[in-house]
């Protein structure tokens, strides 16, 4: 399976994302600059964290109009897995690939540290290696992770089981209904504020994030089995 790590000016988790795929997962991965005009050769798209375009105007608002984003939208429509982490999540929201928006953390502070998450839905292509209701520890690092959507949208998220990860015990940022990660209705686009790529090896303090990537590969293999 071949992954693209999209790099915007100001991305800063791209190397961690690359490392997670290449060294921990052992799959193919390439950095893809934001001016790239085709993602056809890739099977999975990863939008890393960081501060694309300096978070000017709103987090993700400028990156959303990058040339490569048209291709990300196309890949999402084709059903390819698209994962946005942190700033990547914010970009997916701004692009309308996921519903809702981010506000400043309730505390108004940038927060950084490991948090506990509950796996609300383990039937997605991003979470099938977890158990339902499994509690995992994955780090967060953001100033604007306070997820918001209107009641109607939240009802839809709930009805379609689009809430994949919720904060467990402590809500660190004021996020609506403890939401930490959601998918689109089709289930092939996941945005999450916690950084699974920072939790892929015990040396990093934990490997609970690795299963996000293993889930993607597992689903891809299953759907690409050649029946003989």
């Amino acid at each position: 399976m071949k992954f693209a790590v999209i790099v915007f000016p100001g991305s800063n988790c791209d190397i961690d994302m690359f490392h997670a795929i290449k060294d921990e997962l052992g799959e193919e991965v390439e950095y893809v600059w934001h001016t790239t005009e085709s993602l056809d050769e890739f099977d999975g798209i990863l939008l890393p964290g960081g501060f694309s375009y300096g978070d000017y105007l709103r987090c993700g608002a400028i990156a959303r109009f990058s040339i490569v984003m048209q291709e990300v939208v196309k890949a999402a429509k084709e059903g390819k897995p698209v994962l946005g982490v942190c700033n990547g999540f914010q970009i997916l929201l701004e692009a309308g690939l996921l519903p809702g928006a981010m506000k400043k953390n309730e505390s108004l502070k940038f927060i950084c540290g490991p948090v506990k998450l509950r796996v609300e839905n383990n039937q997605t292509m991003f979470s099938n290696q977890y158990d339902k209701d499994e509690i995992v520890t994955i780090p967060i690092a953001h100033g604007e992770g306070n997820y918001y959507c209107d009641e109607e949208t939240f009802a839809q998220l709930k009805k379609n089981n689009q809430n994949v990860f919720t904060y467990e015990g402590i809500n660190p940022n004021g996020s609506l209904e403890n939401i930490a990660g959601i998918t689109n209705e089709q289930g092939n686009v996941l945005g999450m504020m916690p950084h699974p790529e920072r939790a892929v090896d015990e040396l990093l303090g934990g490997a609970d994030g690795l299963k996000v990537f293993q889930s993607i590969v597992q689903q891809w293999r299953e759907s690409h089995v050649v029946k003989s």
Partner: protein
Amino acid sequence: MYKVKVFVTLRESVLDPQGTAVMHSLHAMKYNEITDVRIGKYMELMVEKSDRPVEDVVKEVCDRLLANPVIEDYRFEIEEA
């Protein structure tokens, strides 16, 4: 040429954590008559006359980029410049 002033604020239905913090600070300073603070953004655009009405152009860029309609409202003022 037009000078356009765009004001973007969080929607009334959306809690504004920055505004709330500033209001608490004002109350600590004994300005108890202030009951609400909403913090927003102010932008100035210079827009050349074109075959499209300036209102349409400004509304379109507000909807597409300058404001996020999920959480923000905007209004604008247009002056001849």
